[in-house]
């Protein structure tokens, strides 16, 4: 611009003309600060939700699994019967019935006066009849080892109402009684988990090896119903679908080349400053869903192998503008021979248009989860388990939109660039509740797609990420 011979009043015009076209681009954190000031900090509700679930789950499970006084009481009918008989014959001292003293609770192995008071309860007498071999309700083998004749030990005078000639074992439940102290003749009876032993007359606590050698191991033979190792699970996971975008390849390989003739190629705004693709696109998460059916196999008491079939629906929303004309959308792809640029037509513009438009980027997938479920906590009804799985995934149908490599347009994503096979990982925690034969589960889950949604030619890498709440029901195979 030639300002020769300008007059005094032209000075303002000179300054205005020079300054008018000047532009400066603010750093990224300016917008972040403005957004924070207006809308508050961007929160991640999933994290808070997961943390709350874990804390509440642990609290509930801790409360439910805490030791109760009930579990220390002698409730096994068989042992109660024996002790009942012993107490009758030895004229044991009965004490108050409902005295739950501290020591009685914490040392259930020792039969005390409280024990005798408990076992005198009428219910125990009734239950002893249930173990009559003749009634056929439950199979039971009971026996007592006959004492050696030269033994200096005194046989117990327990009038057990079973045929001693035909039995070899007395069935006792674990953790019931170990030592019986009686007043009469200062006899002590030591009953191990599987043994009924007789205390020698010298009042010493007995566990002599010699005697133990002569005792035939008395086995417990309560026939447990065999539990199947296989279970089946049906689950549904409503989720929130997010995505991560990375344009490192675009900046490293494509922009240095296409930037050489930037002026002639209608170069987008994105190339003019250092903003990344995440600063340019306007995406928002959408609702997704997983539905699956899985088989579980008990590897051990707490670990299960899990596999099955699962259908996933994932989507996120794209905010863009609809254009009246079909813009040229540039796709620069990386292949073995270098950079290959395609021009497609698109009616969706990222920067301007005659109306705003929301596109739904939807993906439908089938996957085969293969994983492990670990039972962390197990209560009577409530439990907590964690699971993780690897999922080979196949995209069966999709309605996706591809961002052009100049960031300006969105084009149809069904152009052969979409990766059909992918790998996902899922991890989650389930709170379980047992109701009859069914085990209900609910808990947070996160799912991540490891390979980019599009193949390696497309320089903008997209990884899908879902946060969901899994609701499932498991039933054991009979």
């Amino acid at each position, binding site marked *: 611009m030639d*300002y020769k011979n300008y007059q005094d009043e032209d000075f303002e015009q000179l300054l205005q003309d020079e300054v008018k076209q000047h532009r400066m681009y603010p750093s990224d954190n300016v917008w972040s600060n403005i957004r924070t000031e207006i809308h508050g900090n961007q929160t991640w509700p999933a994290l808070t939700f997961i943390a709350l679930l874990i804390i509440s789950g642990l609290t509930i499970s801790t409360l439910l699994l805490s030791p109760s006084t009930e579990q220390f009481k002698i409730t096994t009918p068989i042992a109660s019967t024996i002790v009942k008989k012993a107490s009758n014959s030895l004229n044991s001292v009965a004490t108050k019935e409902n005295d739950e003293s501290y020591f009685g609770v914490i040392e259930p192995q020792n039969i005390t006066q409280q024990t005798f008071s408990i076992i005198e309860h009428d219910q125990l007498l009734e239950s002893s009849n249930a173990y009559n071999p003749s009634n056929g309700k439950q199979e039971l083998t009971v026996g007592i080892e006959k004492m050696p004749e030269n033994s200096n030990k005194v046989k117990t005078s327990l009038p057990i109402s079973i045929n001693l000639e035909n039995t070899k074992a007395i069935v006792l439940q674990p953790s019931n009684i170990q030592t019986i102290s009686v007043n009469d003749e200062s006899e002590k009876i030591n009953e191990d988990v599987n043994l009924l032993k007789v205390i020698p007359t010298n009042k010493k606590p007995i566990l002599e090896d010699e005697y133990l050698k002569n005792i035939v191991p008395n086995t417990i033979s309560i026939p447990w119903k065999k539990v199947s190792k296989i279970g089946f699970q049906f689950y549904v996971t409503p989720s929130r679908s997010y995505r991560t975008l990375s344009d490192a390849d675009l900046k490293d390989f494509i922009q240095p080349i296409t930037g050489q003739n930037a002026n002639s190629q209608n170069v987008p705004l994105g190339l003019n400053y250092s903003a990344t693709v995440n600063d340019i696109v306007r995406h928002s998460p959408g609702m997704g869903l997983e539905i699956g059916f899985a088989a579980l196999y008990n590897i051990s008491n707490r670990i299960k192998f899990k596999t099955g079939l699962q259908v996933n629906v994932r989507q996120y929303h794209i905010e863009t503008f609809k254009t009246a004309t079909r813009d040229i959308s540039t796709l620069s792809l990386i292949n073995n021979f270098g950079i290959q640029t395609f021009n497609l037509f698109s009616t969706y513009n990222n920067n301007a248009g005659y109306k705003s438009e929301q596109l739904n980027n939807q993906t439908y997938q089938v996957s085969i989860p293969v994983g492990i479920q670990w039972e962390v906590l197990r209560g009577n009804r409530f439990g907590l388990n964690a699971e993780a799985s690897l999922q080979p995934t196949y995209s069966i149908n999709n309605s996706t939109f591809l961002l052009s490599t100049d960031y300006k347009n969105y084009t149809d994503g069904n152009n052969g660039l979409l990766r059909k096979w992918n790998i996902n990982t899922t991890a989650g925690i389930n709170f379980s509740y047992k109701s009859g034969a069914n085990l209900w589960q609910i808990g947070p889950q996160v799912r991540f797609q490891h390979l980019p949604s599009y193949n390696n030619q497309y320089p903008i890498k997209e990884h899908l990420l879902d946060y969901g709440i899994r609701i499932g029901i498991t039933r054991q195979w009979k």
Partner: protein
Amino acid sequence: MYICLIFRVNYLLLMTEQAILIGCLQNDASAQRELFNRYSPKMLSVCYRFSQSREDAEDMLQEGFIKIFTQIHTFENRGAFEGWIRRIVVHTCINFLKKNKKFNTSIDLEHAGFLEVKEETIPSIMQAKQIIESIRLLPLGYKTVLNLYALEGYSHKEIAEMLDIEESTSRSQYTRAKSMLEMILIKKRIIDRPRENFDWVAAFKK
């Protein structure tokens, strides 16, 4: 045909701006982002002329856009939207300077001779940036008045009200600012020294 095309393009741009405005009225973050992307480069340039540093300029811009988004409901669709935004940003800059009491650092015109300006030949493509940098070399009081009067189009009366000074002070500050800026531009060889028989005549190098 050509006129129709221009009309069509203007219509599309107008609609888009209207959509952004509606979105901002609804406190929609994406519309606000779009508005920011569209006007922040120009407005940062304005802030930069008023500020002492780029950091200050970004702070001014940030405050300005927060005001824009929170007061957008006060915009009446009578004037240009950009003009309304620009007025808010300029007022924010003035308030920022007042708040930080940076007017105290102003110096007299006589001291301008001590300003060290490196003599250099500037390519024409760099002239805009160099002129802005030259304006920023001025003392704060001069710079502010010059920016408001010569570049933003405020009258001396309005400037006096904005800066809490006398109108005559604004006029004298502007005269001194202009002289000082001319001297800087001559030193930087952006303009030639005025000839003897003309007061404000200078020739610009290409």
